[in-house]
């Protein structure tokens, strides 16, 4: 029998402790150390979750806690990546943190009070990164299956985005074709972005604006 109250309070304790490292000027060593601690605790929760998969509510609550740990670990990794001058990695960690928070809120009401944290991540996005250009892909889907039961999606009763026995339901595309790709302001996937841009004959990294050098077939460096 799982003591869910104990699991919940231990997770909240680790998250509260980690909160003090969630800003730019904290030492990267502490941030890395705490990120590892969060991931280790998440691995423990995953094991606990495996033992209560027959209890939908408990498994979903643990899923929400796992995602909350994930969100903070990604936030810490974002701060470290920024300090180590890896802005593209920092962006990916920010997007992963935002996705994890969204998943946690969808998974269980234990994560109902994350609005302020979501706002913090939103402000970080606007403050730390330049406005981005995103891609949106249109895909025609002829066949898709449910990630929970593998039935053709729509034939079972599972709803995409809802939690079932500790997993969020998603739609796995089996037969599909790309129809078009367009540039949008508000994408579903913020990882799908412009990486490089041509500026007066120079190819630049879209985040840092640094020229990107490439080796030619003759081994010569070029911008």
């Amino acid at each position, binding site marked *: 029998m799982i003591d869910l109250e104990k699991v919940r309070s231990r997770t909240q304790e680790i998250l509260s402790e980690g909160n003090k490292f969630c800003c730019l000027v904290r030492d990267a060593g502490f941030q890395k150390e705490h990120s590892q601690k969060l991931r280790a605790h998440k691995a423990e929760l995953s094991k606990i979750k495996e033992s209560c998969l027959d209890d939908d509510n408990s498994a979903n609550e643990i899923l929400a806690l796992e995602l909350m740990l994930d969100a903070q670990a990604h936030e810490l990794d974002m701060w470290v990546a920024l300090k180590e001058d890896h802005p593209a990695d920092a962006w990916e960690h920010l997007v992963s943190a935002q996705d994890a928070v969204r998943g946690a809120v*969808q998974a269980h009401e234990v994560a109902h009070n994350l609005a302020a944290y979501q706002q913090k991540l939103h402000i970080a996005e606007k403050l730390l990164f330049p406005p981005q250009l995103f891609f949106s892909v249109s895909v*025609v*889907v002829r066949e898709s299956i449910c990630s929970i039961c593998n039935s053709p999606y729509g034939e079972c009763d599972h709803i995409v985005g809802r939690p079932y026995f500790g997993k969020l339901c998603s739609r796995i595309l089996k037969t599909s074709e790309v129809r078009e790709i367009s540039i949008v302001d508000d*994408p579903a996937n913020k990882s799908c972005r412009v990486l490089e841009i041509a500026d007066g004959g120079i190819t630049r990294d879209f985040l840092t604006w640094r020229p990107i050098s490439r080796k030619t077939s003759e081994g010569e460096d070029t911008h």
Partner: protein
Amino acid sequence: MSIEVKPFINVRERLMQLGLHAPTGIAILPRNLESASDKADLLHESSTPTLRILWRQGSLKEDRIEGPDDMIPTIHEKQATFIAPMLFISAALLSENPAAVSLALNILGNYITQVFKGDFGSKRIKLSIVVEATSSSSYKKIEYDGDTNTLPDLIELVREVSNDRSREGKVEDPRNSK
């Protein structure tokens, strides 16, 4: 935010021309019903199978346009805007079983709320409802494009359009005109 009422093609004739069933109740129409060159071109919104599950769970019977052997693919657009399936509501259903229409639209409304649960930022939706007018046997499309928080009273809007009480063009949320 905008709510617009536009004229729509004769749904019954168009579906029969494409070799599909003309519904007499509530149904989901493909997004390109007006422009598709043939049945093979038709596309449902990606949210269609989910709404069908929810209607089924709510014991609401959809009068499907597809026969057992027809498969209309879905189109998935990776944008944050949620595009709801295009609904069809017949005049007969609205007069004989308005509770079913309310149930269908309430299920859709709850689904939209769930889609944006945990989202921060824009909660934009686009939805279309094709309504068969009671007296004139004509068809009109209600289009909503805006935030989830300003979603109009869809049931009242559908009634107004079906009874030819709503003019074409931009219209107000019925709640604001009371």
